[in-house]
C-alpha cells in the first residue's frame, strides 16, 4: 500500500502511540484485502461498547488508547450495556454500572460522542450519498450503504476506533464501485405490510443468499422503519453489508444473472421460525431493535394511551436519548411512562446483561430474536408493534400465528428453478 508522508509519520509513531496502533490496524487490513491506499472518512460509528462484551481487557485497551488518542472526525457510539442515567430502573447491578461508566469515560476522553445508539442516522451522524465512512454495527452499516448510499465496510470495534483516531480507512470492499454491484436478483412475491414483514423478508433472504449483495424487485415502497428492520435482519441472518431495492434505494447496480424468488410461504415460514411454540405469556416485551424512530414512539403512545402494562411484565422501548427528549417535548413520553412501560435509553436487548432475568421475549424485531435466543437463552414471540403492545397490556401473546407452508404443494410453491 502506498502511504502519504503524513500517513507514514502516523505509522512510525510520530503522532503518538494510539495513532501508531491505529495505523498498524488499518495497514494490516489494507494488506489483507488488497487496498492500494488509505482514504479519508467523514464519520465513524463504534460498536463494542457494552461492558458485557468488552470485559476488563476491552476496558484496559480503551483506557490505553485514551492516553493520547483523539477522534479526528465525527464519531458516535453504539448502545452500551445499560441506560447511562436510569440504569437502576432497568435492574442493572452496581458493579456492572461502575465498569460501564469507565468504558464511556474512556470514549469521551477520546472525543467520541457518547450517543449510545445503533441508529446514528437519527441523531445527526448522517453521511450523504457516495461519502466514505467507517462504521461498525451491522444494521447501521447496511443502512448507511443501502438506504443512504454512503460507503462503509463492516468494521469491528477496534478497526472503527482506528479510523476515528486517524480519520482514515483502507480503500477496499464497499468503498469500490465493483464490489457494490448486486450479485443476486431477489424476486419478492409476498405482501409486505408491517415492520415484521420486512424483518421476515431479511431472514428468508439472508438464509438463502448469505452475504451476497441482493437486488430486490417487487417491493414497491418501504418506510424508513421498514428499511431499518430489513437492514438489521438481513445483516444478522445473512451477513450482507449492502442491498438494493428497485425503485426504493439510491445506488445504481447492474442486473445480476443469478436469481431467487421469495414467496409468501418463505415470509410466513420465517415468522414461524422466529416464534417459539408455547410460552404464551412473555415476561419481557421489547421494541426498538434497531432503536425506535420518533414515529414509532408516536404510535406506541397512541396504543398505550390510558392503558397499563400488566403487573409482573416489563415493557422496554429501546431508543436514543435525543429521540426520547423529542418524545418528552411532544408529550408521548408522559403517556408511555404513565402506562408503566420503560424507556431504555443508550442500551438495548442485545447488549444489556439480562441473561437469566426473563424467560420469553415478545418483539417486533427479527434481529432481537436471534440474540435473545443465542446470547440469553430466551424463548421468542415475533409480531407487529400492535401485537407487542397488546401482549404488554394483557400479559398474553395472542398474535395470529402465520401458518407454516406445507412442503408438498409443488403447484403453489414457486422456486428459483422455474
Amino acid at each position, binding site marked *: 500500500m502506498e502511504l502519504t508522508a503524513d500517513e507514514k509519520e502516523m505509522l512510525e509513531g510520530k503522532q503518538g502511540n494510539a495513532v501508531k496502533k491505529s495505523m498498524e490496524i488499518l495497514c494490516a487490513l489494507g494488506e*489483507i484485502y488488497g487496498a492500494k491506499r488509505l482514504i479519508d472518512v467523514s464519520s465513524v460509528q463504534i460498536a463494542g461498547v457494552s461492558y458485557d*462484551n468488552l470485559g476488563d481487557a476491552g476496558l484496559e485497551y480503551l483506557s490505553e488508547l485514551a492516553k493520547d488518542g483523539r477522534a479526528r472526525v465525527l464519531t458516535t457510539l453504539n448502545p452500551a450495556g445499560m441506560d447511562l442515567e436510569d440504569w437502576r430502573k432497568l435492574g442493572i447491578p452496581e458493579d456492572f454500572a461502575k465498569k460501564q461508566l469507565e468504558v464511556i469515560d474512556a470514549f469521551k476522553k477520546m472525543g467520541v460522542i457518547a450517543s449510545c445508539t445503533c441508529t446514528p442516522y437519527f441523531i445527526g451522524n448522517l453521511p450523504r450519498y457516495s461519502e466514505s465512512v467507517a462504521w461498525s454495527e451491522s444494521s447501521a452499516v447496511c443502512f448507511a450503504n443501502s438506504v443512504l448510499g454512503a460507503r462503509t465496510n463492516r468494521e469491528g*470495534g477496534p478497526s472503527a476506533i482506528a479510523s476515528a483516531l486517524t480519520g482514515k480507512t483502507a480503500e477496499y470492499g464497499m468503498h469500490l464501485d465493483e464490489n457494490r454491484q448486486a450479485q443476486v436478483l431477489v424476486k419478492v412475491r409476498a405482501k409486505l405490510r408491517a415492520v415484521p414483514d420486512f424483518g421476515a423478508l431479511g431472514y428468508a433472504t439472508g438464509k438463502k443468499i448469505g452475504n451476497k449483495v441482493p437486488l430486490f424487485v417487487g417491493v414497491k415502497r418501504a418506510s424508513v422503519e421498514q428499511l431499518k428492520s430489513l437492514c438489521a435482519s438481513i445483516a444478522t441472518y445473512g451477513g450482507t453489508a449492502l442491498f438494493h431495492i428497485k425503485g426504493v434505494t439510491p445506488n445504481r447496480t447492474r442486473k445480476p444473472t443469478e436469481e431467487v424468488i421469495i414467496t409468501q410461504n418463505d415470509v410466513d415460514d420465517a415468522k414461524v421460525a422466529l416464534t417459539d411454540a408455547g410460552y404464551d405469556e412473555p415476561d419481557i416485551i421489547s421494541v426498538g431493535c434497531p432503536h425506535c424512530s420518533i414515529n414509532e414512539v408516536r404510535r406506541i403512545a397512541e396504543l398505550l394511551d390510558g392503558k397499563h402494562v400488566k403487573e409482573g411484565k416489563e415493557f422496554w422501548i429501546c431508543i436514543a436519548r435525543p429521540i426520547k427528549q423529542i418524545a418528552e417535548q411532544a408529550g408521548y413520553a408522559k403517556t408511555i411512562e404513565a402506562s408503566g412501560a420503560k424507556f431504555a435509553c443508550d442500551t438495548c436487548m442485545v447488549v444489556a446483561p439480562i441473561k437469566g432475568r426473563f424467560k420469553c421475549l415478545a418483539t417486533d424485531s427479527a434481529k432481537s430474536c436471534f440474540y435473545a435466543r443465542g446470547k440469553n437463552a430466551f424463548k421468542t414471540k415475533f409480531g407487529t408493534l400492535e401485537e407487542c403492545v397488546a401482549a404488554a397490556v394483557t400479559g398474553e401473546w395472542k398474535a395470529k400465528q402465520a401458518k407454516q407452508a406445507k412442503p408438498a404443494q409443488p403447484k403453489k410453491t414457486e422456486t428459483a428453478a422455474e
Partner: protein
Amino acid sequence: MLAEVKARVIAKGVAEGDLLVSQKPVSFYGGVDPDSGVVTDGESDIKGQSIAGRVLVFPTGKGSTVGSYTLYRLKKNGKAPAAIINGECETICAVGGIISDVPLVDKPEGGLAQFKTGAKAKVDANAGVITVTQ
C-alpha cells in the same frame, strides 16, 4: 528436521511453541474461554484443548468482531497463543493479533497441511518466516 516456510506478515513479533492445529475456523468470542484459554466451541475439532502458549494454526477466523478483544483478554490473562498461523487471515484475527501483540502470519507457502500438532515451530513475523523443528 528443520523446514523454513515463507508466510505473509500480519502482526509483527517473534515467538515459538508447540503447534496446535485446527482444521476448522476459530471464533475467539464465545469459542475460547478467556480466563483459561480452553476452546469451548462445540463445532471445533480442538474443543477442550488449551491454546495458551501454543503456535495456533487454523484456516481463518469466524464469528463476532468482539473476538479481537477476546484475544487481547487472553493475552492479559497469560493464556493467549504464542503465535498464530492462518490459511487466510480476516479482520477479527488480524486486529486481535495487532492489539494483543501476538505474532500472526498467513498464507504460508505450501499451505497448512504441513503443520502437525505436537511439532515445534518458531514464527518470525518480522521477516515472515516459519521454522518448523521436530
